[in-house]
């Protein structure tokens, strides 16, 4: 597990405390009922704060799964 996924996992654990860590990598807004619109804003705000970045409005529309979020952060770091 690299540093990005570790930090993303922490954010997921903060927002979804009942989500098992081993399931986190597979979740998306479509597959996980607790990932509603309020949780989405909270999760992405948590990630933006953790990584010290500002997210565009379009990012909020596109970053709808764990995998997409990690990919996005890895690209940001390159």
């Amino acid at each position, binding site marked *: 597990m690299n540093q990005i996924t570790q930090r993303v996992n*922490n954010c997921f654990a*903060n*927002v979804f405390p009942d989500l098992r860590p081993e399931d986190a990598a597979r979740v998306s807004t479509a597959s996980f009922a607790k990932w509603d619109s309020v949780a989405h*804003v*909270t999760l992405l*705000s948590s990630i933006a704060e*953790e990584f010290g970045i500002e997210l*565009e*409005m379009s990012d*909020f529309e596109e970053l709808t799964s764990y995998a997409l979020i990690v990919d996005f952060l890895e690209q940001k770091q390159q």
Partner: protein
Amino acid sequence: MDLRSKRTLTLPTPLVIPKDNSPDAMTLNQALAVVNSKKVRGLRQVHYLACGFEPLHLSVLLRAYLLTALPNDDVEIAHGVYGDLRGNIEAAYQSPALAAFVVIEWSDLDSRLGLRASGGWGTKAKTDILVSLESRMNQLESALCHLCTRMPVVVAGPSLPLPPIGNTIDLQASVFELELEQMLAIFLVRLSRITGLRITRCPSANPRMDPRMELMAGFPYKIPYASSLARTLSGVLCQPQPKKGLITDLDDTLWAGIVGEVGTNGVSWHQDSHTQIHGLYQQLLGHLASMGVLLGVCSKNEQATVEAVFERQDLLLESRQFFPVIANWGPKSGSVSRVLKAWNIAPAAVVFVDDSPMEIEEVQQAFPEMTCLQFNGKDPDKSLRLFAELRNHFGKPLVVEEDLLRQASIRSSAEFSELGGDTVSPEFLSTLMGVVTLDFRREVAAGRALELINKTNQFNLNGRRIIEGEWQRYLAHEDCVCAVVSYQDKFGSLGRVAVLLGIKKHQTLHISHWVMSCRAFSRKIEHHTLEAIFTRMGVGVIELDFIPTEKNNPLVELLTEIGVVSSANGLYELSRSTFLSRCGILPHNLLEKQE
């Protein structure tokens, strides 16, 4: 009966003061971690956050600060729907919440003043905004008045900038903006006068508005500002008990100079002698005294020398506002001890101010619970920070009548003791022309009564504290009996000194709270209170929810004296016949005020 051994009853949650005084506000991730780390907790306490925007991060942050401030409770934040602040205030009234936070923004007063409306910013619209604002404010005031009858309410006024609606450049205020701010100021003043409502003042210097989040999700604040706002809201609700007394040094503290060296007229505190900072300190002490804070003096000086300065006409507070004034050459801790004895209050309720680090250290070691602060007259920045700190130690939401009586009543208690009052001879008490007043009206049982319950230690039935919301629920109970007891005699009035709170069922009164100020000891006020309950309310048996604490020995002695016994249901009880056979002749006149 062994009253000290009973420790089986469960203590309810006490009012707990926030411990986190760090200047840094929580981040969102820290707040989420706090919320998640404290999931399994005690009593569930609902607080209502009423706002017109999406509560989102403010709700999380507020919950985290409240969980920190109320570590024994499980705090839940309830909220209403987007865009309906007034409806949400009304929903808070219907909710089981113990307290409400109401956050008002300009868009709640008129949606055209927010970013998500399209009603226009032209001249006609602005005229209409000014006209409609007044009725909107009246509606909110009415809803808040109603809500305050049920729970304490903390209100945050608009903190976001207005849209670019003025006709001037942004460095120049426009008439329209000034008119809005004037209306807002008048509105907030009106709100601040509602009993039980507190207005916040959020000191954050962080940027406030997050237009991206506002347009996308309806949440208007940047997270650092939301955190400061949440901390402010929580801090205004969960305020520490204010300190009661301030003991000050004199030389290079109350005035500049060593009076023993430069003489009575050589010490100074004025601008023209460049010692104005000491004058400001005098003014602050005078202001604190006017709020009922006790002021005492401990100085290494001759008593006559000090008294000569206190006769100077240019002193910026009245010398009689200091009591007692102790000047000698002994250790300061000894003098402080004498002041505490005269005031009869605990060291934890006192602030000691001195310019000498050595004296501060000596007093601090003798009284670890006392707040000891250094006065640095050479550094105005430090002095101003000290003044701000003193304000926070003594500030309280409401100054009540008893605060203003306290200084005089301490003096009269000293006279009372000198005349032999502490020996409580019935003959002596009967010469006092005392009047004990029992006020059973629930509408007057606010402010002072709750303050007494939450700060009294020695004469306290069980040490239980009540938060405002619980208090209001208690009084709303149809069988509730609440007696607020006042006392006055030839030495003056002590004001409201005792509270008895209970539930009456048939001929039994179950007393859950009974406290009396230590200033009222040795006058048989407690006997008068029970006598009135028994003989005038048709009560045959009193059940007492007594729990021994580290400090309530004075009450234990009374209960033993009047014949309280253990009862089968784990409580303690006192029958009318037992009490009347033991209470003796009561020396004062009794007045009652009924609902």
